[in-house]
């Protein structure tokens, strides 16, 4: 039996039924990691020793009946921007090359409480700034579907680790599409929850008002179960929301009869690859067949989302990243004269080009004389975008949209033209600006053999609607493993 081929929930069931031990599950994951890492580089850090030690503890808690949840004993990979006590946390940046936190992010703690076993930390775009996982200081991550292509980003390592079956599931973070876009590029499922649903405590901030942690897994069932485990009201995060219910798995029903699904016409313009478009339209047909009412509509303001996002996210980032200065932790330049020279050299050497670009952009839009023209205008745009979605959700239960204009581009193609790369975020970004939940589910494979994903977006706190729609759609097709897994990638031969 190839344990890594199973979904998280399937593996959890086998562990609970004593068919598999936690140690076996963790060892299977590491066997897979050893086999795959040279090809794809999903991880910045792995810690087999700690994972095996934890596996022993979890096994005891399962055996004595303390841990009964679906994720008990299941191996997880965590994006490297979430603090893990005693384990290196780099944000894929040189500036945090030696940073070992003294505390664990609340979302990861919640997973640990549920009995999941952390394998290590996954690669990402430096400080989550990027859409390709090429800006990491620890090497690019490659798409397991075709290693000449990027996995998307910024949660690229988490998505490849799931797709290449190096872990049973992973955590990612999504500021402008960083869970949904790489999930689409890697043929896996990921949820960006409503802002405030998962605590940001211990998540190293990029754009504080947009960041949200979410699950990445093989299917919708896993994602719902993981979200149920990580979502919580956390008094340590002032933006955390006390929700009426943290139940998501009850929405796993194959029923979209009468569900009103809107397709924003403005998303289906020239920039959208025709194969992606066809796949989405085909998915819409499937949902229609199941009884959903699918209609097109004008969302409006779509072209303003990208500039508004890059202003707000960069502004917040310019301030959030100010703390990395070589004084307290992380990288410090080896030679310097005086304080200002130390700051300058540390930050010049410690940050990569994309991070510097966004710090400069953010500092510029906040500087006196430009604040009103850029930052305030962006905030107003954000409010208008939220209103446009509010209007849409008066008519529709969920919105169906592409996750990205194309399938995964080739390595090296995107960074040469950052504006083009930024435009690639067009379908994911407004969801963060409006604080909405969104899910990406695979809906096809293009002629190049690369996966296509579609997004289902819901109104704030309506995760259950998108989970139900996604689950229903998922029933119309079977999970497609990436070729690398099929080509003798299994471990049980």
């Amino acid at each position, binding site marked *: 039996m190839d344990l890594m081929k199973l979904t998280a929930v399937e593996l959890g069931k086998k562990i609970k039924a004593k068919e598999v031990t936690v140690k076996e599950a963790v060892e299977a994951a590491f066997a897979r990691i050893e086999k795959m890492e040279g090809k794809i580089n999903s991880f910045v850090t792995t810690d087999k020793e700690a994972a095996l030690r934890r596996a022993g503890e979890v096994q005891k808690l399962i055996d004595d009946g303390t841990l009964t949840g679906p994720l008990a004993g299941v191996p997880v990979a965590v994006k490297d921007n979430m603090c893990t006590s005693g384990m290196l946390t780099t*944000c894929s940046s040189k500036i945090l090359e030696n940073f070992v*936190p003294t505390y664990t992010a609340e979302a990861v703690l919640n997973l640990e409480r549920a009995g999941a076993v952390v394998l290590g930390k996954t690669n990402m775009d430096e400080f989550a700034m990027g859409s390709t996982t090429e800006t990491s200081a620890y090497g690019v991550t490659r798409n397991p579907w075709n290693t000449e292509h990027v996995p998307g980003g910024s949660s690229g390592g988490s998505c490849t680790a799931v797709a290449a079956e190096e872990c049973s599931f992973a955590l990612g973070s999504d500021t402008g599409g960083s869970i949904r876009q790489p999930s689409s590029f890697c043929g896996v499922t990921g949820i960006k929850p409503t802002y405030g649903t998962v605590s940001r405590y211990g998540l190293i901030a990029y754009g504080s008002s947009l960041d949200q942690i979410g699950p990445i897994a093989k299917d919708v069932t896993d994602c719902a179960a993981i979200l149920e485990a990580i979502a919580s009201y956390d008094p340590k995060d002032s933006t955390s929301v006390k929700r009426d219910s943290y139940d998501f798995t009850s929405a796993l029903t194959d029923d979209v009869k009468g569900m009103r699904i809107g397709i924003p016409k403005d998303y289906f313009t020239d920039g959208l690859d025709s194969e992606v478009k066809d796949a989405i339209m085909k998915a819409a047909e499937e949902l229609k067949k199941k009884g959903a009412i699918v209609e097109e509509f004008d969302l409006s303001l779509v072209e303003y989302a990208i500039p508004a996002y890059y202003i707000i996210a960069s502004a917040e980032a310019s301030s959030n990243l*100010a*703390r990395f200065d070589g004084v307290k932790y992380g990288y410090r330049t080896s030679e310097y004269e005086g304080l200002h020279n130390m700051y300058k050299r540390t930050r010049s050497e410690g940050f990569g080009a994309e991070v510097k670009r966004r710090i400069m952009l953010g500092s510029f839009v906040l500087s006196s004389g430009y*604040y009103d023209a850029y930052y305030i205008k962006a905030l107003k745009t954000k409010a208008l975008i939220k209103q446009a979605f509010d209007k849409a959700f008066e008519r529709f239960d969920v919105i169906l949209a592409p996750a990205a204009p194309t399938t995964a581009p080739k390595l090296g193609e995107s960074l040469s033209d950052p504006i083009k790369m930024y435009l690639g975020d067009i379908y994911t970004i407004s969801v963060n600006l409006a604080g909405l939940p969104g899910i990406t589910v695979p809906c096809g494979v293009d002629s190049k053999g690369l996966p296509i994903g579609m997004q289902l977006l819901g109104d704030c706190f309506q995760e259950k609607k998108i989970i139900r729609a996604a689950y229903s759609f998922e029933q119309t097709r079977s999970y497609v493993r990436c070729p690398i897994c099929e080509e003798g990638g299994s471990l049980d031969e």
Partner: protein
Amino acid sequence: MSKQYETVIGLEVHVELATKTKIFCGCSTEFGGAPNTHTCPVCTGMPGSLPVLNKQVVEYAMAVGLATNCKINQYCKFDRKNYFYPDNPQNYQISQLYLPICHDGGIEIETSAGKKVIGIHEIHMEEDAGKLVHDEWEDCSLVDFNRSGVPLIEIVSEPDMRSADEVIAYLDKLRLIIQYLGASDCKLQEGSMRADVNLSVREAGASEFGTRTEMKNLNSFKAIARAIEGERARQIELIEEGKKVIQETRRWDDNKEYSYAMRSKEDAQDYRYFPEPDLVPIVISDEWLERVKANQPELRDEKKLRYKKEYDIPEYDINILTSSKKLADIFENTIALCNKPKEVSNWLMVETMRLLKEEEKEPDDICFSPVNLAKLIGLIDEGAINRTVAKEVFEVIFREDADPEKYIEEKGLKTVNDEGALRSTIEEIVEANPQSVEDYHAGKTKAMGFLVGQTMKAMKGKADPGMVNKILLEILAE
């Protein structure tokens, strides 16, 4: 100086609030402590940490705003002020710029020039920074984050003050209001109250303000007064010489009595303020505001009126007794125990003030309890000790908060009320001093005083002077 000049002054006053924990985390605000022991990931700016607002800070800020007649912004926000400095772990300070909690207030001050209202532009909440320690030997700097995240309010006045006198009166009034509220101990020397002085001069009668400078590092009322005089003179001299005053921040050196330019407007930093995304806006409900209003303690002005009405004591005494919350509290609490306002006031006004002066202390440093003062007054009242002994006992109460009953018992200071013993002592004194008895009968009243003194000496001061007088008169009349 041929022309007449007017000084225009506005103050920015930082007050450290008396909360037990920091503004955005649960760390202790206690002063002292080994470096970096009152710290956590939040107040040391660790990646991924998030601030959570201490509600008590909002209540204190509201209380100060209400007591200074401000309007309260029931919807207010925090903003980030961005600047790099190693004492500031995040390299931004969480403060309020766009929607501060209080605005448009003012307090009335009184100087020799009369009464006047000083406007308060705004009061905002913010966090304090850590402390840098420069090690000259090792040639390095160390940072202590114990103070990082201690809550502050900044009270920004309008440019309504015209002299050092007015500035001192304003600061003193502010200090008393805040002390009365219990929101801070407001000690300038210890830095729990800090004032920056914005000052400009203009020709008398001019309608436009001159160019102002901001002065920092003012650690006492006296330093503030000297700095104002010094800066006024410096600016007038520049103008008289036909030079321009430059808008800049200056650091006052109280030893040299001169200020030095720190930075000018040209190289002033752009703080790139923007709304703090890690905190939600503060919404102050009508109920919350009403509750804070209802809990406002009696402030000094009201207290003065009440003392005048309730206790028959002079206005001068009332002024002194209310000049410190501590003193007023002791006064009231002692009265509550012994119901002798006049007597209590006397002990505080005379002996307490004398001892404070002797020991170079402030009323806030008083450490005796009202219970012991009330006991002392009771002992005098019942004639257990006389006033001379009482003064001696009070010194012990003042220094050690001693229980007067135990103390006089241990030291055997109780007045001798045994008439027989006293009578025989007096008879001996009379017998031993025939000349004085003769003088007394000859109408020399001074002789009576001598005989009383001799008796007291023989009794080691423990005799009740009233009784000594009475018996002596009886014996002399025989």
